[in-house]
């Protein structure tokens, strides 16, 4: 059940309308190109996007490596899936990470991160319900961890971005609270531009009758600030060290 309409809404909108020189609500949806595209047109658009992403994959990956590096990601690979776990373990040992947290998602079936870490004497804690106890435990574990590892839903070559979508199995803080972070990106998740991503998102929204993920993050490099004397400093509230592992 949606929340009730705010009691001031009608009066508020009426004042806005009058300021615009109208006394009545608009009868039709205003004419705006991105809003107008109904489902069939959006589907067609997304088919084009997918085809473009398919043929430009190699170029997009090359560009992602450039833009991500420019945004201060440490980029690894592309490596074969069977080697990716070792790359992660190497990162973890290089950071001298002792407390590692990770999400619970499909990618970890293909990339045996736990095994590789275990061989290096590190055990990863899964931050997901049923595995840890309750909200404060989850928070506490993430805040004490040295390293967080998650998969992504997409990566965007244009901006050096990993798109992380918290949901069941993927806590918001896994990619945020620890001082270092590793994102696992598979080649077929790499999009060319933000336009590609938003076209896909809008289609998903239309097809699911208005449902969108509750929370999405674009992560485009380490946490940074220049608030003191315009001097760039990394690792303020989020991870200061971010690794992107590209997987073929």
């Amino acid at each position, binding site marked *: 059940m949606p929340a009730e309409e*705010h009691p001031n809404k009608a009066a508020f909108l009426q004042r806005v309308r009058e300021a615009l020189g109208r006394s009545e609500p608009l009868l039709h949806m205003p004419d705006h190109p991105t809003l107008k595209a109904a489902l069939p047109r959006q589907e067609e658009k997304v088919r084009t996007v997918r085809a473009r992403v398919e043929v430009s994959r190699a170029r997009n990956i090359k560009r992602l490596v450039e833009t991500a590096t420019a945004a201060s990601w440490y980029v690894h690979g592309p490596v074969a899936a069977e080697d990716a776990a070792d790359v992660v373990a190497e990162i973890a040992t290089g950071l001298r990470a002792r407390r590692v947290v990770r999400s619970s998602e499909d990618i970890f079936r293909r990339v045996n991160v736990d095994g590789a870490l275990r061989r290096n004497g590190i055990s990863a804690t899964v931050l997901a319900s049923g595995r840890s106890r309750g909200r404060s435990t989850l928070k506490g574990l993430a805040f004490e961890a040295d390293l967080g590892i998650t998969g992504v839903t997409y990566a965007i070559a244009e*901006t050096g971005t990993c798109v992380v979508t918290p949901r069941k199995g993927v806590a918001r803080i896994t990619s945020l609270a620890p001082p270092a972070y590793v994102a696992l990106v598979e080649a077929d998740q790499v999009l060319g531009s933000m*336009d590609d991503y938003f076209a896909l998102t809008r289609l998903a929204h239309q097809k699911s009758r208005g449902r969108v993920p509750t929370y999405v993050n*674009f992560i*485009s490099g380490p946490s940074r600030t220049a608030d003191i004397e*315009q001097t760039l400093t990394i690792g*303020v*509230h989020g991870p200061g060290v971010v690794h992107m592992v590209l997987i073929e």
Partner: protein
Amino acid sequence: MAKVKSAEFQKASARAVRDEGIQHALTHVMDHFTEARAEAIATDYSDESWEAMRTRAAAIKAHTIGSLDYYLDLADKSVRRNGGHVHFADDAAAATQIVIDIAKRHGVKRAIKSKSMVSEEMGLNDALERAGIEPVETDLGEYIIQLAGETPFHIIAPAMHKTRGEVSDLFHDWLKSAPTSDIARLCSIAREALREKFETAEMGITGANFVVAETGTVVIVTNEGNGRMTTSTPRVHVAICGMEKLLPAIEDLALFLRLLPRSATGQRATSYTSFISGPRAASDEDGPEEFHLIFVDNGRLNLLKDEVLREALSCIRCGACLNHCPVYRKVGGHAYGWVYSGPIGAVVTGPMTGMKQAADLPYASTLCGACRDVCPVKIDLPKLLLHLRHRHAEGSPRDERTGTWMERLYMRRWHDAVKTRGALERSTRLGRLLQKPLVRRGKLRSLPLPLVSGWTKDRDFPALAPKPFRQIWREGLGEGGDAG
């Protein structure tokens, strides 16, 4: 509402110009921003040119503002469909009351805040404190000025006027940390101090850079990660935004997310962009159980009513017009006396808070046009400033009177003014100073501001507009087109 001290613009400017620390910071930081921006827009980003992007963004914002009632309604329905609550607040007091009521209902003792200019308008921190709730700013710059008891000096860099020594002293006083001149160390002191707050605060308060009407999505752009913390760890999230922050559809975001970081900090993308569509789902691992979005008017209707000033509602608060303004670069942010500074502050402060007390602000401009040329949504700030000067000259006509005859009168006067230099000069207080040639060999030799002597003694200003001032002048300001 936060106190408006714009009536003291002249005195405050004079003070700022004499303050060596502020002058040093302004020179240093402003150059950094303008260079980073220039570099960022010179690199390629998509198939669209920078100019084409600006034109399209201006059109989308104008369209959205022109149908604002429709989009507010759509956003309201979308956010509620996503399980959130939506509020409509006429003024700062109403918005503040809504926040406090939510906090009381949840027994909130501590609220963490990510940067929100609207909450500055509201003077929200003071109000929360009075209600027994501890507000904690989490953006490093905002945190510093909160400890210092000040207001933001710049939209993007609120504490840019503070030196590391001053920050160290503040941290020493408030957090008992050892004095240090190491900036990285200062950042980690703040990190540690705020971690505890992130772990324990029951409520997160943020602004919104954009609100997507169709999907009911609040977009927050940050670099530090405090925006993500604020929207992840507390039980309740309250987003507060001006009613103009809307975009129609999620696909419009790509364009605005290209324009905003490049214009603001010269980045291709900020470190984090968060898209929040309602409270956590039952199956989500974490995140706030309740989500509120407050749309705030607080004087924006006065801008909307005026068909010329309406354009100011397209502002995406990037700060570029501040960085390129020869006046802001000399007097800094506090002189403007309220929340918004620079050219955009000079435009909106009067209409939003009362024309009388902000009467000086429309004159705090050389009309050099640099702001208009860099604005990512092409707001014609010099035109709006002239319009305000004329409204002022007309004896501050009430907003209801900006009907057709007012408009005709204004248009005639404006055209007269830009056609003949004399008329404009008479119509502005700056006029008499503008008789001297300003631009010589690409440098602005003297700034036409009568407020402060010794204004340009120490340095030349770059002539920031791509066209010489005289040429823009001859072409009639607003009609000169974009050479940028």
